[in-house]
C-alpha cells in the first residue's frame, strides 16, 4: 500500500514538473549548450586553417611580416583561452572570447587586403582553395553564432516567463545566458573579391 502511494506521489510530481516548465527549461539549456558547441567548433576550424594560410602567404609576400605576425599572435591569443562550457554562463568570459576572436577576424581581413598586391599569390591554386575554405568557415561561424543567439533567446525567455520563473527560482537556479553582440566590423570579415 505504501509503495503504491509512493508511486502515485511520484506520478503527480512528474506531471507537476512538466506543467511548470521544468523539463522545457532543461531542454532549452541543452539546446544552448549544443549551439555553443557549434560556435566553438566553427571557430576552431578557422584556427586550424590559419597556419596553412600563413605558410602559403609567407612564400609570396615576404614584405608583409607585420601583418602575418599580427595574425599569428591573434591566433595564439585565441588558442590560449581556456574554453569550457562555463563560458556561456559567464558574460565576462564570453565578452573576452568575442573580443579575442574579433581581433583575429580583423587581423585576417587585413591580411586578405594585403594579399591583393601579390598577383602570383592570387593565382596560386593552394591559396585559392584556402581562401575558399576560410570564406566557408567564416560563414559557418556567422550561422553558428546566429543559431546560438536564437537558442539563448528561447532559453532566456523560458526562464523568465511564468510559471517557469517560479520553478527556476525554487529548483533549478539557471542563470540568464549571454548572446553574442553584433560587433563593429563583424560584417567586414574576410570577403575578398578577385
Amino acid at each position: 500500500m505504501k509503495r503504491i502511494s509512493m508511486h502515485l506521489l511520484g506520478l503527480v510530481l512528474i506531471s507537476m514538473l512538466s506543467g511548470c516548465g521544468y523539463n522545457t527549461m532543461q531542454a532549452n539549456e541543452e539546446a544552448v549548450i549544443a549551439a555553443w558547441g557549434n560556435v566553438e567548433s566553427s571557430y576552431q576550424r578557422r584556427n586550424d586553417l590559419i597556419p596553412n594560410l600563413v605558410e602559403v602567404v609567407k612564400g609570396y609576400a615576404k614584405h608583409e611580416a607585420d601583418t602575418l605576425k599580427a595574425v599569428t599572435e591573434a591566433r595564439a591569443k585565441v588558442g590560449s583561452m581556456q574554453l569550457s562550457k562555463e563560458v556561456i554562463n559567464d558574460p565576462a568570459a564570453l565578452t573576452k572570447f568575442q573580443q579575442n576572436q574579433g581581433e583575429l577576424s580583423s587581423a585576417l581581413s587585413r591580411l586578405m587586403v594585403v594579399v591583393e598586391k601579390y598577383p602570383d599569390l592570387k593565382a596560386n591554386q593552394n591559396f585559392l582553395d584556402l581562401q575558399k575554405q576560410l570564406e566557408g568557415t567564416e560563414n559557418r561561424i556567422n550561422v553558428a553564432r546566429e543559431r546560438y543567439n536564437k537558442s539563448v533567446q528561447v532559453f532566456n525567455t523560458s526562464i523568465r516567463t511564468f510559471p517557469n520563473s517560479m520553478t527556476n527560482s525554487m529548483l533549478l537556479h539557471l542563470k540568464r545566458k549571454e548572446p553574442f553582440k553584433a560587433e563593429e566590423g563583424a560584417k567586414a570579415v574576410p570577403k575578398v573579391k578577385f
Partner: protein
Amino acid sequence: MRFYAYKLLLLFIILLTSLTQTAAALEAPPLKGRINDYAGMLSPTAARSLEQKLAAFERETTNQVVLLTIPSLEGDVIESFAIRVADAWKIGQKDKSNGVILILAKKERKIRIEVGTGLQGVLPDITAGQIIRNVIAPGLRSGNPDQAVSAGLGAIIDATKGEFKATPTDKKATRKKKSSGYGLFIVLLLAGIVITAVAGSSSRTAGVLAGGVSLPVAAGIGLGAVLWKLGILALLGGAAGLLISLLMRLFNAGGGGGGYGGGWGGPTIFYGGGGGGSSSSDDSFSGGGGDFDGGGSSDDW
C-alpha cells in the same frame, strides 16, 4: 495581472519588429519542386529534363539537389539568404542531411552552392568553389544559362559520387566537337527515333520500315554520308526500328522501365506519355529535414 499581460504583449511586438528589422531580409520563396526558377533563367525544356534528372538522382541515392534562381537579392547578402532558404526548405534526408541547394541571383550575378552537413565530406567548400568557378560561372558569363546550370548540377552530382574533376577544359572541348557537324544529324536522328517509336507501337513491320528509312535519311542529310554506306545504315536502322518497336510494346504493356535514351538529356521528354515512370512534375516534392551549417561556397559570375 492584466497590466503584466499587456506589457508582455508590447514587449513581444517590439521584439518581433526589431527582429524583422535587423534581418531586413528577403524571405525564402516557397519550394515548388527541384527546379525553382523564379528568375525565369531556364528554358521550359531544360527545366523539365533537369527536374527529371534530379528526381532520378534522388531515387538512386536519396540525395536531394535543388535549384533556386531569384530575380534579385534586394540588398540582402547571398550567404544569409541561402541559409534562410536552407532552414526553410530542409533539403536532404533527416538522418543524412544530404541536401545541396544551388542558388543564382540574376541581378547581382551571384552564385552560391549551399551544402548540407552530410555531404560536406564529398562536396567540401573547395570543390563547391571549383564547380562555381570552373563550370557554372563561365557558362553564365557566355550567356548560356541552360548549359551552365545543367553542367553545374551535373558536377554537383558527380562530386557526390566522388567523380568530379576540376578540369573545365575537357568539358568545353567535347561540347565543341558535338556541335560542330553532328547537330543536324542528332536532331534528325531524334526525330527518326520518335517517328519509329510511334510507328513501332502500332506494328512491328512499320517500326522496322520507319527505322530503315529514317536512319539513312538522317545520315544522308545531316552528315552527307556516301551512297553505299546508306544501304548498311538502312539495315542498321531497320534493326534499331525493330528494337524500338519491341521496346515500345514493352512500354505500352508494362508501363515501367527507365526512360529510354535518358543519356541524351533532351529526348526523355518525348517519352513522357509512354510509361508511368517518367512523370515527375506532379509527384509532390519536399525537403526531408536535412540540416545545413552554412558550408558551401559563393562567387560572382
